[in-house]
C-alpha cells in the first residue's frame, strides 16, 4: 500500500461535513492562500524529514478510524490538499465504505477529479472551495489558477458528488457575487439542492498577506446570503 503524509487525525469533528466525522488532515498543498488558517500543512514533503507528520498506509489510517465506530457517520479528508494523493484516498475510501461509513473530500478543487473515476466511485461527496471567480483575483489570493476548479465544479455537479460549495468571504478581496453567479452558470438548477457555506473570514492562525485583515461584518454576511437567495441558492449556511 502507498503511504501518505498525515498531519493529524481528529477522532470526532463537528465541523467537517455532515454529522459526526473523523477528520484526517494530509500534509502538503499546491496553493498558497493569503488567508490559509493552517499554513503548517502547506509544505509538501517527499521524505521523512519532518517529525510533525506520519507517513501512513490507508490500512493504518483505517485502523484509527475504526476506533471511532459506531460514534461517527463517516470520515472527511482534508489538508493541506488531500487530492494530491488520489491513490491513497481510493484505497482508504474503499476500506471505509466497506465499514458502512461515508467518505467526504474537502478540497481546493485544483486537481482534476474527473481523471480519477475510481476515487469518485468510492467517494460519497466533495466539499469544494471556490475561492474566487475572476482569474486574477484567484491568482492574487492563492498563487494558482482556477481553471480546474471551474471544471471540477461542473464535473462534480454532473456526477452528483457535490456535497457542499464553500466560499471564504472577505470584502474587496473575494468576488463573492461573481462566484455565486458563476456557479449558477456552471451548474444551473443544481444550486437549489447544493449546500452553500458562506464562511466568514477570521484571521485566527493566518500568517499570510491577510493576517491583519478584518472579518466581514454580520451585515455583510447577511447581505451575501440575501444575494445568494436571489440568485437561486436555497440551502445556505453562514459559519
Amino acid at each position: 500500500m502507498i503511504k501518505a503524509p498525515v498531519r493529524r487525525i481528529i477522532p470526532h469533528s463537528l465541523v467537517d461535513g455532515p454529522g459526526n466525522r473523523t477528520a484526517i488532515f494530509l500534509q502538503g498543498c499546491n496553493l498558497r492562500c493569503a488567508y490559509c488558517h493552517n499554513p503548517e500543512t502547506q509544505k509538501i514533503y517527499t521524505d521523512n524529514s519532518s517529525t510533525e507528520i506520519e507517513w501512513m498506509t490507508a490500512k493504518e489510517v483505517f485502523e484509527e478510524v475504526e476506533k471511532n465506530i459506531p460514534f461517527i457517520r463517516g470520515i472527511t479528508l482534508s489538508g493541506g490538499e488531500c487530492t494530491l494523493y488520489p491513490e491513497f484516498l481510493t484505497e482508504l475510501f474503499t476500506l471505509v465504505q466497506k465499514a458502512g461509513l461515508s467518505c467526504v473530500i474537502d478540497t481546493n478543487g485544483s486537481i482534476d477529479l474527473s481523471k480519477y473515476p475510481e476515487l469518485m466511485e468510492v467517494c460519497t461527496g466533495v466539499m469544494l472551495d471556490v475561492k474566487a471567480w475572476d482569474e486574477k483575483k484567484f491568482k492574487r489570493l492563492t498563487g494558482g489558477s482556477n481553471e480546474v476548479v471551474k471544471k471540477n465544479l461542473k464535473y462534480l455537479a454532473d456526477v452528483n458528488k457535490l456535497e457542499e460549495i464553500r466560499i471564504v468571504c472577505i470584502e474587496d478581496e473575494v468576488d463573492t457575487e461573481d462566484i455565486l453567479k458563476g456557479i449558477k452558470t456552471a451548474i444551473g438548477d443544481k444550486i437549489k439542492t447544493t449546500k452553500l457555506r458562506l464562511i466568514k473570514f477570521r484571521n485566527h492562525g493566518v500568517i499570510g498577506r491577510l493576517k491583519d485583515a478584518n472579518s466581514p461584518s454580520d451585515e455583510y454576511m447577511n447581505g451575501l446570503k440575501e444575494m445568494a437567495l436571489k440568485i437561486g441558492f436555497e440551502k445556505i449556511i453562514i459559519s
Partner: protein
Amino acid sequence: MTDILELVKSQKLTYEQKVLSLAHAAEDTLDVLHIPEKTQYYFEQKAIDNLFEGNAPYRPRYILPDYDKFIKEGSNFLQIDPPKDLDELLYALMILYRHVPSITSFPVYLGNLDKMIDPFLEGYSDEEVKKKLKLFLNYIDRTITDSFCHANLGPEDTRAGRLILGVEKELQNAVPNFTFKYDPDITSDEIAELALYTSLFCANPAMCNHKLNMDTYSTDYGIASCYNILPIGGGAYTLSRLVLPNMAKLAKNIDHFFDTILPECLQAMGGYMNERIRFLVEESGFFESSFLVKEGLIHKDRFIGMFGIVGLAECTNILMEDEGKRYGQDEEANDLADKIMHTINDYVNTFPAKYSPISHGRFMIHAQVGMDYDKGITAGVRIPIGEEPKNLSDHLRHSARFHKLITTGCGDIFPMEITARNNTSAMLDIVKGAFNLGVKYLSFYEENGDLVRITGYLVKRSEMEKYKKGEVVLQNTTHLGTSNYENNNLKDRKVRRI
C-alpha cells in the same frame, strides 16, 4: 443542641430550609433502627453511608406517582376532578406536586410531562401554550426549591415536547431536571436534535437510553432525582451506598479486600437497608395513611431498595497503587474494577431484599453520584475529572462497559464546546453510537453556560457565587453544589472540543 440553635439563627438559610433542617434534626434524636456492631463499625469508617436519610424513615426516599391515573380520575382527597382542559390540568398537577413527599420533602418526579400535556393542546396556538407552560414551569422552579426534581420527555415526538423544549431554552431554570427518553425506533431525529440543541443552552434535557431501560420493571419506568430509573406508581424506599475508596483504605491488600472487607460491607449494607425498609413499611404508618396509596397513585409492592456504589475509580486506584495502574486508563485496572462490580452484582442477585416484589425480592444497583462532603471520590463508575481519555470514543466505550451492571441509574456528563450548537446531528451520532454500545444515560452542557450539572442535578454558577458570598439563595441544592463543585474540581471536566 448547639447545632439546632445554629440552624435557628442561621442567616444563610431561607425559612423553608430552616424548617426542613429542624425536622431532620428532630428525626435524628430517635433511635429506632437495630444496627449490628459490625455495621456500626463500617459506618464509623465511612465505608458505608446512609446519605443522611435520617434515623427513623417515615416516607420513601423517592416517589413516582402514577400521574396518568391522577389525570384520568382526579383525587378525592385533594378534591380535584379529572382535568378537562389545559388550565385545569396544569393547576391539578401544581396542587398534587405539593403533596408528593420524598427524602428532600419535594417531589422528585413530575411525570412524563409531554405525554401528559399533549392531549390537552387542541385549540390552543403555540404562543398560548408557551405562555401557560412558562407560568407552570416557573411555578415549579420557584416553589420546588431543590434540583433533585425531575421531569421526563419522550420517546415520542410530540407538539407538547417541542414546546416544552422551546420554553426551557428561554427560561434557563435549574428545576426541574429534564430527561428525554430516546429510542431511535420511536424518536424522530428532529426532536432528538432539538433536545440536544436545547441542552447546549440550558443543560436540559439529558438523554436516556429508552431501549436499555424500558424493561427494568414489569411496570413503566420514570427517571427521578439524579438519574434514578424507578417504577411508576412506586419508587425507592431507600438508598445507601458503599463508599468504595474508604473500603479499599481498610484493606491490607487486594485479597483482603475481596475476602473480608467487600463481603462484610455488602452484608452490613444489605442488612441495614432491609432494616430501614422494615421500619418504613411495618412501623412508620406511611403506607397506611398516605392518600397516594389509598387512591392507587402508588403501591407498596412497586418500591425497591437502591444499592448505591460510589468511587469505583479511586477504589481501584488504591488497590492498584503498587502497580501504578489507573482506572479508565489501564486495562488491568479496568479488569479489577469489573471484578469488583461483578462481586457486588453477585451479592445483590442473591441477597433477599424485604418488601421488593417489583425487583423480584432483590436490591438494585445504583451508581450514586456523590455528596457535597465527598472529597476525591468520583461519582459512581465515572472516570475521575482530569483523567478522562483523550478520545471521546474510548471514554464512551468505558462507560458502556461499566454501565452494564447498574440497573437503577447510571450516567455520564460531557461539557461541550459552543460550536456543537451548529451541528446537533453530530451530537446525535454520538448518542446513537453510545446507546448502541450499551451506554445507559448521557448528559451534555455548554462549557460556559450558567447552568452546570454538578453530579446529576443542575445549579446556576451565578447562584453559587451568591452563596459563597454568604447570601441566602432560593434552592438548597446550591448549597450542595457549591461544595461539590469545588471539592471535586468540576470546572476541570474535560470539555469535548469535537
